[in-house]
């Protein structure tokens, strides 16, 4: 089964890294086909960015962008003023939002999940240049929603990638995994 995920974020929040971490964790969890790629735009800190991830039991031959995602992950809800994050989302799709609010506070005709990733990032001191980097807590929350990707696999992927700063990211992931509201 193919699962397609779009991450919407802003330059500096780590959307592209989030997609990569997910792909790597998915592989470690036994999925044969994984894929992560950014939409290369004029990437600036703060400017809207998009990243894609695919997870499947089989090798993936798709090389095009994701048009009909199963899940959209919104790292910054401010983006929703300018981008329709539900565009193409499958009927039974899920929206995972970085927000302190509860899912019921949003009126999407889709399943909504929320996690206050910004607070988690700030609490664990995950910042670059003053910007809270919310990618790891968001993936932590996502793993909770997704079937077939294990939290332990995600932590391993984080350790491989981050070295010294892995520990605080692992904490953030765990916290988000537990705090996500479905």
């Amino acid at each position, binding site marked *: 089964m193919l699962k397609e995920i779009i991450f919407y974020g802003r330059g500096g929040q780590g959307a592209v890294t989030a997609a990569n971490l997910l792909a790597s964790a998915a592989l470690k969890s036994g999925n044969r086909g994984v894929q992560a790629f950014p939409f290369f735009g004029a990437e600036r800190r703060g400017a809207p960015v998009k990243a894609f991830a695919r997870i499947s039991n089989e090798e993936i031959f798709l090389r095009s962008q994701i048009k009909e995602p199963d899940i959209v992950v919104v790292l*910054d809800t401010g983006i929703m003023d300018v981008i329709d994050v539900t565009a193409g989302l499958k009927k039974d799709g899920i929206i995972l939002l970085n927000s302190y609010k509860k899912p019921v506070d949003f009126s999407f005709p889709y399943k909504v999940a929320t996690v206050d990733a910004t607070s988690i990032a700030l609490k664990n001191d995950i910042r670059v240049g003053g910007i809270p980097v919310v990618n790891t807590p968001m993936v932590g929350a996502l793993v909770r929603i997704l079937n077939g990707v294990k939290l332990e696999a995600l932590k391993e992927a984080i350790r491989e990638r981050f070295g010294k700063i892995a520990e605080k990211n692992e904490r953030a992931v765990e916290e988000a995994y537990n705090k996500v509201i479905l």
Partner: protein
Amino acid sequence: MIEKTAISIPTEGAMGKTGTWRVFKPILNKEKCVRCWRCWVFCPDLAISRGDYPVIDYEYCKGCGICANECPTNAIKMEREEK
């Protein structure tokens, strides 16, 4: 007829309302403000204009915090913006 080439027209908000990029929001305390206009001159986003006191345009302020950092009287504070 202008043939198709990469011509672009000056537009306010060419990248949209960049205020949505913000995580921290500058709040001005007029009582402390001495109107030195350092916040105005250093704003990379033209989000502070000169009225009687500095006027912050939250539609476009990206929340970098230079204004708060450069304010000699600490009249500007950066506050977490809940979303």
